[in-house]
């Protein structure tokens, strides 16, 4: 029964079905419970919230990621799924706190100095949250000084830097140098992304990783976490 409802949560996250109003991918699902109702039902049945997260939500998002990379899924599909995960986490948060489940790590996200493009960075933030990370999104046009300050204060495990312009990508290098000068470079892993950037560029400026899209970003974070 428990396995059954966790599987249902997973399937509904994959379809991005928030609640019973949603007709689902093939239509005809109106009236059947969506993620919101299923999570509540599962809690009422006494299902372990940690299992709902790991076997339901996280597994679902990893399938969404695979489909996105295979180009079966598009950005709106992925956002719909992530939104159901966000809702589920809101419902589960107090129960998870009680059962002592820690987040997988803390990530600071920022679009670098001089760059106002925040859409890609926002998507990465949403998907990282969906994968179980605690994310602090600092917004756009974030100076190296502000990043140094927040790393000092919050001691995150990762920083994700984004830039869309060829003219602002060098601010990523500047940010990494500022972290080094402040003696913080080995305290935090830096991953970068954004249209003009690449794995080569990441290596060149001394970043720890590069993600071409939101799911690659999650994968890079997981790999770096395992290595450390």
């Amino acid at each position, binding site marked *: 029964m428990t396995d059954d409802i966790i599987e249902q949560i997973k399937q509904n996250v994959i379809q991005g079905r928030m609640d019973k109003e949603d007709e689902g991918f093939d239509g005809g699902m109106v009236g059947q419970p969506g993620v919101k109702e299923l999570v509540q039902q599962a809690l009422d049945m006494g299902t372990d919230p940690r299992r709902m997260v790991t076997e339901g939500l996280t597994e679902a998002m990893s399938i969404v990621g695979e489909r996105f990379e295979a*180009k079966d899924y*598009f*950005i*709106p599909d992925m*956002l719909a799924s992530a939104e159901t995960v966000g809702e589920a986490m809101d419902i589960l948060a107090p129960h998870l706190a009680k059962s002592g489940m820690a987040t997988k790590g803390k990530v600071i996200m920022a679009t670098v100095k001089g760059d*106002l*493009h*925040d*859409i890609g960075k*926002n*998507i990465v933030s949403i998907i990282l949250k969906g994968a179980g990370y605690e994310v602090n999104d600092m917004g*756009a*046009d974030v100076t190296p000084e502000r990043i140094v300050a927040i790393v000092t204060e919050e001691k995150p495990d990762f920083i994700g830097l984004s830039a869309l*312009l*060829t*003219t602002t*990508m060098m601010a990523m290098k500047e940010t990494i140098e500022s972290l080094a000068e402040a003696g913080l470079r080995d305290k935090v892993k830096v991953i970068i992304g954004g*249209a*003009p950037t690449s794995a080569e560029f990441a290596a060149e400026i001394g970043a720890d990783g590069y993600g071409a899209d939101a799911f690659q970003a999650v994968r890079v974070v997981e790999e770096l976490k395992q290595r450390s």
Partner: protein
Amino acid sequence: MLIIGERINATSKRVAEAIGNRNAQFLQELARQQVSAGANYLDVNAGRGPGSEQEAEDIKWVIDMVRAATDVPLSIDSSDPQAIKAALAHYRGNAAIINSVNAEDGKLKALLPLALEHQAYLIALAMDDSGIPKDVDGRLRACDRILEQASACGIPLESIFIDPLVLPLSVDTDQGMVTLRTLAEIKARYPQARTTLGLSNASYGLPLRGVINRALLMMAMQLGVDSVILDPLDERLMALVKAAQVVLGRDPFCKGYLKEYRKGRIKE
């Protein structure tokens, strides 16, 4: 409606390579093709990344090559005011468009005097220091600010093309209406000013992007958008532009449409 051809843009890998290798033939072919497909203006962007001085050198070279191949005026496209300054000094032609200014102080201070000095048109993006406002009011505030400062500088409203901007619909499906409502409001508030629209951002993240771009363009044309930045080599899009002119009563005796049809350029 003015068609501004978007293809000569260094964010395209092949164009960036052609600029890097000084492959004039490639750029000139791209220029000629766009003009023959109906472009009234060509946008040129040489921002490959290696810094301001290089971009200034690159854009001057691109301007020379494109002007040697075609007669249409150019839209000089850069996020770097220094590159725009160098390009305009080098251009020496009529009716250049500066692409683009927005409501950021630094941009206005650098680019308004240049527009005046060179009597250039100006594309004004409805955004400010904190990015693209997500709502109509925010975008209109940015437009108000740009137009106020431009008037104070002595630039006539007729010289300004306001772009209401469009954010990716894949991320937020309310954004199509934000763009269209902003466009309608600009037309009402500033009837002497011109308007323009870069289409392709709308379809980012969706499959078959051209279909979305075409739908948006049709709706913007109904609201009377004065120019559009697009890929003139997209035959379906260009055929729809001609068809829309007919539907909107802007093509007497359907002459424009039939001319294209007889050239075999209207595709179903």
